[in-house]
């Protein structure tokens, strides 16, 4: 699950437009394995946080209803080119990933 996260952050006027693409299976726990008939255990991202220059801008909680390989877009006013964006996620099994990008 250490597949890298992709972040693209660009300035649109005075607002930073941040787009994040994560790599995660986002298993709902409601699907059955067609071979065994057993339910596939849930495995999904529960918490996503984003900071700009170390300040929290987005604190998000997710359920299994977010699509596989999640996309997240958000906007931050007052950020400027060169600021550092860091995105973290934690899933229901305690796995984590983090990535950072510079606003361009």
């Amino acid at each position, binding site marked *: 699950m250490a597949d890298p996260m992709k972040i693209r952050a660009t300035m649109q006027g005075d607002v930073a437009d941040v787009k994040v693409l994560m790599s995660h299976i986002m298993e709902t726990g409601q699907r059955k394995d067609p071979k065994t008939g057993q339910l596939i255990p849930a495995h999904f991202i529960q918490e996503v*946080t984003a900071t700009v220059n170390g300040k929290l801008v987005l604190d*998000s909680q997710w*359920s299994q209803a*977010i*699509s596989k390989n999640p996309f997240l*877009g*958000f*906007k931050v*006013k007052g950020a400027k080119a060169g600021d550092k964006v860091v995105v973290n996620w934690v899933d229901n099994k305690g796995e984590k990933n983090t990535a950072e990008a510079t606003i361009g």
Partner: protein
Amino acid sequence: MNQFRRTFLKGAGAAGTVAVAVAAGLLKPTQVLAAEWNKAGFTATKLDEALKTIGGAGAAESKDILVKAPDIAENGAVVPVEIESKIPGTTSIALIIETNLNPLCSTYDFSNGALGYVSTRVKMAKSSKVRAIVKAGGKTYTAAKEVKVTIGGCGG
């Protein structure tokens, strides 16, 4: 030594370990303080119950919230949804898929200049209203958009 004292000491020991971990920089304080995952809300199967856990019951309909989603989604496993709140002082958005098994889909809290805007992709089991619950200035507002799903995105 009585049982209460034992339990108490055990607890104190565990708390000490956390403090040491924080001091050693193993755990960042922000991670420790992050709000706990809203299990009651995300596992609720009834819309009313899910709304209660996020304080979204009785939200007022608002035309200042834009819910952008396709009229017809061919694949319920990936439905792009964009929510934009033009209400000043928007602090959080909750996204709800009314007819999903667990209606509460996700929540977003904004701070330090983040705008009341979020874009994501969600799974929808069947046709449903996609609802946004927005908190701004201590009040709650809501808006919804109907999305028709031709192939469901949950199960099978």
